[in-house]
């Protein structure tokens, strides 16, 4: 199939290769196990002071309950905002829905508590799904606006709808004869809220255990291919689609997940306080959740946890009130800030001083130091490398006559090419960017597409990979009609690509970039990402070994731990190719791979492409660099003004007068 399952002789080296900065690390299952145990222990220690139900511990237990609620809501928002970079201002709305719906289902509808909680979470998920479907075409401010609209709608309904008691709260004396929800009973155990002295607040046990589980599961998700797909979406949706991610579905899923976790925060509030006041679910709440994520560190596993604990503590302790009093004493008794204003100032300061949040800043400092130390060790190894792509013949396993066997297999299906474009055309408004193009390529073949600027080469590449939908014509790949499929479907069909300007995850390491290229990014189901079954560990190890092999193939092995953004340009191109290879494509479309490369790098690129051909890949290379084209291409297509100008072997095409004229202009006499 590909080179993926070859090269046995380097596998033994994987053992010491994985030692890239991880020699002192524990094995992944052990590390995950320790994290889970630590999370549960911390959760249980937090409620230890309430074990005897002493009246003095009530306020502490309520504080822990508020923190737990904020943690799960913030963890949910972090998946959305920290990874997929969708800044939702609606998390407070889901929190409110979760709180009110669970209370209403228990009291008014009389449901079994478990059913009521499940129902409340399902309602949050359903509302989230509707909002997600409605807002998924939006990005940036418009997305934030629509989620804000949701939060405001929910707030208005809670404030003004009679069944929820309006400002009297829920439940209230007038409607229910009580101001507290009855203690709920599950499996014969009564779960008491932290309200009454000398009654053990048993409800705190499931609250903190669930919180710990949510943190563990969110960590699993964030570190799974599912999580990388969110980061990919955050970086560029087009890129994510080319990695085989169904962007729309994935965005809806993560939004629903975040909504359910927001709702769970509300459920915790209901369980802890047994009474709800509409004014606690205002815009300030939704912003506080966002602040918790940003303050702790968005896009980190522990950030939202730290942020939520910090913010809730700040708001409930006397610190802010004291600061406010200080200002009144020393500055002015009218020009001062109280809690909401101080939270605003804290927010602004966080953005200025700690844009990565507490956890993000700390971990950047730690990894920075570790990398620094590592760079020192790696110095010797690094020097031997030329600063470009080099398809070191040692790294590339000698080509078995793979291509030929494949080609021989192809003989049976006469006239059927791996890829066959027929009559392909694309109009942008009145502009015919590509017209009536035919093109075919087979396994073990390099087809170069050349042409002057504006000839429609990149448009052709984009038509092929699903970025644009063709206005006319068909594309058939492996005998299957893929005309007009979305990019993720094209990628899954087995067509990889690289971009004119490398599209990488600049903040992620080289290794992580390659890992994002595997089909798992698009295909791992959410449950598998969340629960992390043993098969996941095996697959992770496999992917890692394979990624290391691919990095060696393109000459990146000693850069595995480096941030992709720090790579020299030529290496970024190599990384993009390695990532495309990780997706196990049959055909790779390279859009101007030599643009911006040094001469030595271009030569290395040529070697690499030739070796890929030898392994049976089909390559379509859009390129300007004629030396490279002449050296590697089996067939060359020259386009001009969206149409086929010339086709043939490199020699034929490059000596074609029409091609020369298209590049250099026609001789003067012909203009007359």
């Amino acid at each position, binding site marked *: 199939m590909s080179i993926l399952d070859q090269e046995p002789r380097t596998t033994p080296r994987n053992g010491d290769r994985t030692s890239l900065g991880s020699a002192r690390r524990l094995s992944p299952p052990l590390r995950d196990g320790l994290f889970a145990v630590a999370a549960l222990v911390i959760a249980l220690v937090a409620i230890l002071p309430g074990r005897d139900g002493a009246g003095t511990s009530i306020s502490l237990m309520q504080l822990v309950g508020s923190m737990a609620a904020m943690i799960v809501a913030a963890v949910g928002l972090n998946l959305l905002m920290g990874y997929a970079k969708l800044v939702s201002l609606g998390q407070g709305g889901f929190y409110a829905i979760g709180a009110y719906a669970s209370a209403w289902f228990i009291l008014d509808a009389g449901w079994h508590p478990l059913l009521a909680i499940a129902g409340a979470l399902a309602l949050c998920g359903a509302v989230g799904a509707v909002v997600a479907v409605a807002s998924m075409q939006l990005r940036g401010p418009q997305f934030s606006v629509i989620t804000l609209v949701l939060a405001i709608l929910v707030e208005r309904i809670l404030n003004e709808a009679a069944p929820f008691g309006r400002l009297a709260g829920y439940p209230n004396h007038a409607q229910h004869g009580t101001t507290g929800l009855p203690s709920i009973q599950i499996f014969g155990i009564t779960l008491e809220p932290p309200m009454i002295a000398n009654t053990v607040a048993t409800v705190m046990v499931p609250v903190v255990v669930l919180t710990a589980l949510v943190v563990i599961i969110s960590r699993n998700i964030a570190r799974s291919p599912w999580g990388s797909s969110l980061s990919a979406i955050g970086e560029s949706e087009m890129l994510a689609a080319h990695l085989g991610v169904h962007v729309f579905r994935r965005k809806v899923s993560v939004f629903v997940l975040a909504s359910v976790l927001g709702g769970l925060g509300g459920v915790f509030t209901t369980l802890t306080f047994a009474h709800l006041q509409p004014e606690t679910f205002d815009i300030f709440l939704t912003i506080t959740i966002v602040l918790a994520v940003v303050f702790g560190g968005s896009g980190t596993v522990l950030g939202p946890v730290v942020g939520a604990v910090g913010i809730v503590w700040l708001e409930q302790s006397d610190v802010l009130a004291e600061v406010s009093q200080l200002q009144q004493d020393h500055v002015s008794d009218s020009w001062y800030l109280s809690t909401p*204003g101080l939270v605003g100032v804290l927010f602004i300061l966080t953005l200025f001083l700690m844009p990565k949040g507490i956890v993000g800043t700390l971990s950047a400092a730690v990894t920075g130091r570790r990398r620094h130390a590592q760079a020192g060790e790696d110095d010797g190894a690094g020097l031997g490398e030329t600063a470009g792509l080099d398809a070191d013949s040692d790294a590339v396993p000698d080509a078995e006559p793979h291509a030929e066997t494949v080609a021989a297999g192809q003989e049976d299906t006469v006239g059927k090419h791996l890829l066959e474009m027929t009559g392909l055309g694309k109009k942008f408004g009145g502009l015919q960017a590509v017209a009536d193009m035919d093109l075919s390529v087979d396994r073990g073949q390099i087809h170069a597409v050349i042409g002057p600027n504006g000839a429609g080469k990149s448009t052709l590449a984009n038509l092929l990979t699903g970025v644009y939908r063709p206005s006319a014509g068909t594309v058939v790949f492996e005998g299957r009609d893929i005309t007009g499929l979305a990019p993720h479907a094209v990628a899954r069909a087995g067509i990889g690509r690289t971009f004119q300007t490398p599209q990488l995850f600049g903040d992620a390491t080289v290794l992580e970039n390659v890992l994002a290229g595997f089909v798992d990014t698009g295909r791992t189901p959410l449950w598998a990402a969340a629960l992390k079954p043993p098969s996941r560990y095996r697959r992770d190890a496999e992917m890692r070994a394979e990624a290391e092999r691919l990095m060696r193939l393109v000459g990146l092995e000693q850069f595995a731990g480096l941030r992709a953004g720090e790579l020299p340009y030529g290496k970024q191109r190599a990384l993009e190719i390695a990532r495309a290879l990780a997706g196990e494509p049959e055909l790779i479309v390279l859009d101007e791979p030599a643009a911006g490369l040094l001469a030595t790098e271009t030569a290395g690129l040529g070697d690499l492409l030739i070796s890929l051909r030898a392994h049976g890949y089909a390559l379509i290379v859009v390129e300007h660099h004629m030396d490279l084209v002449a050296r590697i291409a089996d067939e060359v297509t020259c386009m001009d003004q969206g149409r086929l100008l010339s086709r043939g072997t490199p020699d034929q095409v490059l000596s074609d007068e029409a091609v020369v004229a298209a590049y250099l202009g026609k001789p003067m006499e012909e203009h007359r």
Partner: protein
Amino acid sequence: MDALVLGLVLGGLYALLAQSFVLTFITTKTLNFAVGEFVALGAFVVLAVASWSWLPDIGKVVVGLLVAGLIGALAYRFLVLPFMTEGEHDVRWLLSTVALSFVMLNLITNVEGPSPQRSETARLGGSVDVLGAGVSKQQLLIAVLAVVVTVLLVVASKKTPAGLVMRAVSQDPETTSLMGVSPRLVGMVTYAVAMGIAGLTGTLYAATVGASPVMGAPLLVASIAVAVVGGLSSLWGPLLGGALYGVLSEFASYEFGAIWGETAGLLLVIAVLVWRPQGLLGRRTEVKL
């Protein structure tokens, strides 16, 4: 009929404020979520200078507009600009303007107290009969002003050098900066104009409901909705969005009760965004690889 006229008038108020969102969005691709507080700021500044008897009302209104505009420009320079440096997905400015809104709201509340104060500046008493519906003159003034401001902005953007610069920055800030125009300066001026409009809205609106710290909050929600419905990239958008939103919400609250008024308006936003994410009059930009 009543609902139609009252809805249009109400829509005028929202449209006027929505114009400040559209202005900042066109040039800087940012929105100021503290607009509601600039509304209150304008109202309170005018209230503070109300006792200057030497200054005619129009002068007091201009003072409110200028102060709001100046603080708006500073807000852009120090709270928006530093937080929009990392490309189009960088929406930290959204968080910083929300934070600014908290700070301003809190400060105004602590200084002026939470209850509404009567404002007599630039106040037209009485009402007129429009197609059988009684409309207060003040509200009509605001609605007419919304149309006037929109026409002025459209003419200015088409006919004046400043308008040309504004449109250039909106299309391609980098290239524009190569032409010797500072996108930062353009952004500050736009924010000044936009927040000036918000302050003006506040002054005129305070004359009907009184000046209070939270007076801007309901306007913020409605005017963001209006701006999004009309299209954030279109100067004509607010008038169309305002008309639709105003009439729909007035009609719904007339028929089904007050709570449904706003709900209907917000559902309109969702419907429009699903159907045309760029808004009714907005332009869609294609992603290029």
